[in-house]
């Protein structure tokens, strides 16, 4: 059974702030530059960033990314939450730094395969 957005919500280090539809997560993409994310993120990946503002949701929507993780306990704007609800994009928060968050998700995905 492939790893999904629901499984990520169940990991203890991650808090699902906004829930969308159940979708498979096959990889992780870490970046804060929006132009790189929109052009290089792979399909069905979860995107880890430290930017909790609304423009991340626009990029995730345009690139069809199902989920955003805001790492390092960085603040998440109300506008981002509202936009994610509207677009059906998952937002997770975590206290983990970007690398550790990516490693935890990568291990969980590998485990589920």
């Amino acid at each position, binding site marked *: 059974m492939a790893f999904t957005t629901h499984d990520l919500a169940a990991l203890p280090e991650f808090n699902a702030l906004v829930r969308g539809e159940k979708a498979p997560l096959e990889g992780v993409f870490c970046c*804060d*530059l929006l*132009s*790189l994310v*929109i052009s290089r993120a792979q399909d069905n990946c979860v995107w880890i960033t430290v*930017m909790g503002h609304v*423009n991340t949701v626009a990029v995730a*929507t*345009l*690139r069809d990314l199902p989920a955003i993780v805001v790492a390092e306990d960085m603040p998440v704007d109300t506008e981002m939450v509202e936009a994610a609800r509207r677009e059906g994009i998952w937002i997770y928060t975590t206290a983990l730094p970007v690398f550790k968050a990516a490693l935890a998700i990568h291990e969980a995905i590998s485990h589920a395969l």
Partner: protein
Amino acid sequence: MAHSEQSMKVSYTVLPDDFMRAGEASGALKKLLKELGFPSDTVRRCAIATYEGEMNMVIHAQGGVVEAIITPDTIELELRDTGPGISDIELAMTEGYSTASDAVRDIGFGAGMGLPNIQKYSDRMSLTSEVGVGTTLRMTIRSG
């Protein structure tokens, strides 16, 4: 919206300095292309190119207009603004070059990848600009 059997013309307004709504025009166009049944690769390339152009109008100009003429096999896009214009287009096209402010960079823009991304993901692009008058970006995305 003008509409005929073979082509459809749509137009979206991009508001100045509105980072809260930035991406709405690209998002609306993407949704329309999906509904029209374009292949996902075409929709994706169009979304990237339009988003980069839209962000340029939000960041550098006082917003502008996005127009798309959609036919079954091509999407012709024209993005027009009445912003400050680009004095050196060749320099602006250089990957990594940006005149965006620190505040804009702090939210993940201004990497100097916008125009190079547009060139990469469109089949044809042309940029005309006059300082003090504005900039027009035209791009063609062929489908399939």
